[in-house]
């Protein structure tokens, strides 16, 4: 089943309360998927800086080591903010490649969840409420964000199997549905040097979009290609540096509701996900059309 939510702020008030709104939306979708939950939040960027979000299975051991490691590397300047099993490394945008390689070599057990100027991804096994409390997502601010609560069907309940999946810098995807050709598509993408960390079908969708965008397609074109190449049922919500996009497969049996006011655009698997939003009773509410790409950007 799975539940997905998204919120795109058009006003400073909604930006300030973005984490709180998204948290309420995600918690309302708990009974659509109690296995694991996650959120991607797009915070204010810092000039000339970028961020790497990492996750550790043993943060109490690895994060102090990581902090020490970073401080001893005189050639890089970065800071580390830990948040439970996740940590955000803020670094000079020019040193992105160098830092990523240093960390990957020295800490092979550390998982890099996202890279980007704005995006941070937090995801763990557990119910939405547990995950939100763990990372204090309700206190976060941002211009937009997307969230997911998972009912695992085709792969294991693990942190890496949780959504969102990063699809490239400042890009991520959450998925409600199931893809039937993900194994053959994964093999095809591996031959094209894409790498995978899970057996999850949604990771294949994320990787497919990344691959197409690396090849020069726009997000809209990449999403339209997925209508041709992906076989199965899906509602995708895709976060980018500037906004989010929505796409449903042509059969469109996976639910989706959109709401728009002068203050925000909101997405929910169900109307229930939207009821806590301010002035929802005055919002324009509709069901997105099948096989149609929607996008809102700042």
């Amino acid at each position: 089943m799975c539940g997905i939510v998204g919120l795109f702020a058009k006003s400073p008030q909604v930006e300030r309360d973005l984490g709180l709104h998204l948290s309420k939306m995600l918690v309302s979708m708990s009974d659509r998927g109690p296995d694991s939950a996650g959120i991607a939040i797009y915070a204010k960027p810092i000039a000339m800086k970028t961020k790497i979000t990492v996750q550790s299975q043993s943060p109490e051991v690895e994060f102090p080591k990581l902090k020490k490691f970073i401080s001893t590397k005189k050639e890089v300047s970065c800071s580390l903010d830990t948040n439970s099993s996740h940590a955000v490394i803020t670094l000079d945008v020019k040193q992105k490649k160098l830092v990523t390689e240093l960390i990957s070599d020295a800490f092979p057990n550390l998982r890099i969840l996202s890279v980007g100027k704005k995006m941070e991804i937090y995801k763990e096994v557990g119910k939405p409420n547990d995950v939100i409390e763990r990372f204090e997502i309700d206190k976060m601010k941002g211009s937009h964000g997307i969230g997911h609560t998972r009912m695992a069907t085709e792969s294991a309940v693990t942190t890496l199997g949780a959504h969102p999946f990063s699809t490239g810098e400042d890009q991520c995807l959450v998925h409600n549905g199931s893809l039937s050709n993900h194994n053959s598509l994964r093999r095809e993408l591996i031959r094209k040097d894409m790498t995978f960390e899970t057996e999850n079908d949604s990771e294949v969708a994320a990787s497919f979009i990344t691959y197409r965008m690396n090849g020069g397609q726009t997000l809209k074109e990449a999403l339209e290609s997925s209508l041709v190449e992906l076989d199965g049922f899906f509602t995708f919500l895709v976060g980018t540096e500037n906004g989010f996009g929505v796409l449903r497969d042509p059969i469109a049996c996976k639910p989706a509701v959109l709401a728009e006011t002068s203050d925000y655009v909101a997405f929910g698997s169900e109307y229930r996900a939207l009821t806590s939003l301010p002035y929802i009773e005055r919002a324009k509410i509709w069901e997105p059309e099948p096989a149609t790409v929607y996008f809102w950007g700042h």
Partner: protein
Amino acid sequence: MGILDINKLSLREINNTLQGSDDNSSFSIKNPKGAHALAVGINKNINVKVLGSVGYYCAGMNKFSDIKIEGSAGPGLGENMMSGNIHVTGDVSQYAGASGHGGSILVEGNASSRCGISMKGIDIIIKGNVGHMSAFMAQKGNLVIFGNAGHALGDSIYEANIYVAGEVASLGTDCIEKKMTKKHRSNLENILSNADVSDYYLDNFKRFGSARSLYNFNVDNAKIY
């Protein structure tokens, strides 16, 4: 009139109250906030008004009762309805009125995909548009669409009338346009008058139904086996 507030009562308490009420009683349901399975399985001649939008499977298996939703409804509105009336002032999501045997559903807004799938005698009136695969495998009843219909309208239809005033994106297999006879004009007038709908122009409607070519096995296909 009984007032049932979802902020104060559980879904089960509300549905038990409705199902156990006396004929001719009336209820208002407050704060539905997209709740699932509201007012299902009612087998009494009662009046229910829902003050807001509802989620999945509202008014499923309805028999005898009149249910008005002042808002929109999620997937599966009035599934397998037997009789009574459902009136939605907003939009409805997927498969509204699926496999309905009788009674009527009036939607003032749009309906999404698979509206009236496998309908078996129900009348469904949509004042707006309907999505793809509506009236799929419809067996009996009437689907009246004031707006446009999505792709594959009436796919594999057995028997049922589909009346459309707007455009049809495409017809499904074995669904064809049929002549709007005197009998069908009066049938449509009756359906709309029963639902208290008067703002329409009869000449705008076209009728679609079964070509009946899937009724029997085509011997030319025998060589496939």
